[in-house]
């Protein structure tokens, strides 16, 4: 759509600007201020310079959390995106069944995140959970509070359970926007099922899939509540992701300075990724997808 140039439009954006400035800019400035100071409570601050940044950069703590975070995000993306597309391809296109599937699939997305954690915490327990009990009955040694691998598997399966529907719904929306004529043309051209997917469905889904991938990446990158409820970051620090570590530091130990430095670096990474996201999205929009 060709938009008209109108700088008066700023007045329409002003309320958003004020509100978000209040809830984002002021807190962010505060974080910057904290990051260069040391405190012992009572609002007594001492200049610390770049000390906290240096400390965080040299400590394994942040790097380990970052490494775990990247592995986590990569794994869930690798599972959720293909699975979501696969589910979307099999969804009924219209009718009551379609509505039923849509609503049922959306359910996990609407559950408070700590309840998601609670559900899986219960579900995976060997004594009272269906999953844990079944696995134990099959003779598999499964205990997510003790075993690192079991803990990882649990939080990944939980995330897949929680969020695959998002990818599926997005892909489904993309699929539904393909005009019938394309499928008809493909039938006339005798294209195989795979070719229909590869040359019609996938290109048409590319736009929404990009949104899905990036949303999932960002959301998994700042995930906190669900894994925290299930494992509390353990066993040991095995499942301590970035946000969990940050909250531990800031609210648990009240180490304002290091936590602020950590926050800023975390935020910078997010900013860089957001920029890539935005650039890719606007370029896709321009191509009319």
């Amino acid at each position: 759509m060709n938009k008209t140039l109108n700088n008066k439009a700023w007045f329409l954006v002003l309320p958003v600007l004020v509100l978000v400035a209040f809830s984002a800019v002021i807190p962010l400035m505060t974080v910057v201020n904290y990051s260069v100071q040391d405190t012992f409570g009572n609002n007594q601050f001492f200049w610390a310079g770049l000390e906290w940044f240096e400390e965080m950069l040299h400590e394994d703590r942040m790097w380990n959390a970052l490494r775990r975070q990247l592995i986590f995000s990569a794994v869930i993306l690798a599972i959720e995106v293909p699975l979501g597309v696969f589910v979307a391809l099999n969804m009924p296109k219209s009718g009551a069944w379609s509505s039923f599937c849509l609503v049922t699939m959306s359910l996990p997305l609407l559950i408070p995140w700590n309840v998601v954690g609670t559900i899986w915490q219960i579900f995976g327990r060997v004594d009272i959970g269906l999953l844990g009990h079944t696995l134990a009955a099959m003779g598999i040694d499964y205990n997510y509070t003790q075993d690192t691998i079991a803990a990882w598997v649990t939080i990944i399966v939980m995330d897949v359970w929680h969020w695959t529907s998002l990818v599926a719904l997005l892909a489904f929306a993309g699929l539904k926007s393909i005009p019938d004529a394309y499928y008809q043309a493909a039938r006339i051209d005798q294209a195989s099922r795979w070719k229909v997917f590869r040359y019609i469905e996938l290109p048409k889904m590319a736009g929404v899939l990009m949104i899905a991938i990036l949303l999932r990446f960002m959301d998994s990158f700042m995930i906190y509540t669900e894994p925290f409820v299930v494992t509390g970051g353990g066993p040991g620090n095995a499942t301590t992701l970035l946000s969990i570590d940050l909250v531990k530091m800031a609210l648990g130990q009240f180490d304002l300075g290091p936590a602020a430095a950590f926050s800023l670096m975390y935020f910078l990474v997010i900013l860089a990724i957001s920029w890539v996201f935005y650039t890719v999205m606007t370029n896709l929009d321009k191509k009319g997808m």
Partner: protein
Amino acid sequence: MTLELRGVSRIVEGQLHVHPTDLVLEKGTMNVLLGPTLSGKTSLMRLMAGLDVPSVGQVIWQGKDVTGMRVQDRGVAMVYQQFINYPSMTVYDNIASPMRLLGLSKPEIDRRVRETAELMKLDGMLERRPLELSGGQQQRCALARALVKDAGLVLLDEPLANLDYKLREELRVEIPKIFEAAGSIFVYATTEPEEALLLGGNVATLWEGRVTQFGPTPRVYRCPADATTARVFSDPPMNFLAVAKTGASLAFGEGQQLPAPEALAELPDGRYMAGFRANHLEIRQHRPEALRFTAGLAVTELTGSETFVHLDHHGDRWVGLIHGVHDLEMARASMSGSTRAMSTSSARTGRWWRRPPTRRPPEEDRTMARITLDNLAHSYQSNPQTEDDYALKELNHVWEDGAAYALLGSSGCGKSTLLNIISGLLQPSQGRILFDDRDVTHAATAERNIAQVFQFPVVYDTMTVHDNLAFPLRNRGRDEAYVAERVGEIARMIGMEHMLKRKARGLTADAKQKISLGRGMVRKDVNALLFDEPLTVIDPHMKWELRTQLKKLHHEFGHTMIYVTHDQTEALTFADKVVVMYDGRVVQIGTPEELFERPEHTFVGYFIGSPGMNLLPAEVEGNVAHVHGAAVPLGRGYGPLSGKVELGIRPEFARLSRDEGLPVQIRRVEDVGRHKIIRTELFGQEFNVIAGEDETVGADMARVAFDPAHVNVYADGWRVAGAA
């Protein structure tokens, strides 16, 4: 009351959208902005409306500078190409909304809404919502909203472009009438030269953001100021020819000489370009001074009453529009170009022309089929009761192998249903469909070996043009050498050889549609090629090119082709046989000539031809008809007829006269360029007559006479044959 643009121009992000323009529009005039897509029509209109502010210059309305004034305060009305109404309001509220904002009293609003609704034939649907209406009705609602406001400036941006051909024609006649009374300034943007001619008034031709000429429509048409204007204002395209002037003579390409006419006496010597219109090209020596040229014939297209000839004159592509039906296959034809501007003349010679023979390559994989529709009918309901439940009513027909058919009808007449049944995308509720002798009623689309081109271009975006064209062949496991050869051939044919390596994404709509056409054509072994309104997205200028290309392809390969359209010109020029459909029924199948001269049903008479056939209620006795007591001789004798009896007379076969025929009153004379349409009233009924470009219509011509051989008699809508 005038609207004046003073040195107005508009630059958006460094790009010049409108060149500096001066324009004065007077009160009570119809002003047409004519130009191809993106030529700046809409930009100019938005400046007039005040929706955009000019970068430079002023807009003066009634002597007042209104540049930069809020659009709400400008008192203009506008209708868009898309059917823009307020979807959440009823039709009544839609029409009433501008008046409510003006603060008019309730009874006043009610009166005017009902008045306008009646004028726009919306009275029955005031309580419905716009989206429940058909496209034509939606646009009528938008027009009503623009009209009811009594605005001094009414802007219409291609208001009829998205409507069916016949509907467009009807509204086109209505609009000048409706707006004549209003006394406002009307500005009407269009891409079609014919529409500009029908609307009359003034025309401004636009090309790349520049107004190339502004003046009374017939004058701009007859004396275009430059070649660009001429090109913009001609459909079919203007023909061009190189000339050289030396002293008092003009020399043409092949050594023809001609004394320079007086008008050109002052012209300095040099090389020039002569332009002449399609209808000034004849195949016979029509007057002694006509000049003769020899040209090769590419394609002929028949419209029923006229013939388009596409010629190649030493690399120049010429189009001729010739009266009558001329089958040029073995006809002895001489062609004479007479360009009005130069009033050329020449001696005559004869020349044989031949239509390129329909080549049937003796290749093994070439298969074509005779398509038989046996007792076919379809209903979208699972349990159809009455005939009305059928979208397609019972049909028996054989489609000949290798012929080109057109399915013609308005939206919702069942033509797409029929096409989908043939292509196998739809299973008929009854009957069979046979390709040659094989029953394919339940065969899958892929098994039927057909190709189809859809209304909107279907291309595989991520593939290159080459891969797109190769796709159907590769899917059938053809070897790469063969694929490369075929793709090369097809690419040459559709003129895309130079962009084979490009990705299909990002190409223009008509390039994409060409790829779709090419993909349909790439397989030699198809039984039939189906086209579903393939030229919808194409600009008028391109339509000519693509249509002739299709026609050429048909001659070269001889595939059975079925072409669905609502545009009679497309149907008539494309097809050997046209199938006219109405309300789920096939009303007539025939050659363009048959449809034109002997419409089997009054609907065919109305639908084909513009304007359509005139109908007169009459009583018929033997070979004389009585219309309101006046006798009309008929070419044939008729027995006693039952039901409603009407005479059907094409405007082309009626002529005005001073002393013979029935008494008429002339209402309007429309100069449409190559002919005149005379709107008259005959016994209180509308009656159209077509007169030649050069004929003069005198005020004393108060009678109309018919050619008895071309008067058809209808009983209850169906034609009665009669005996010679």
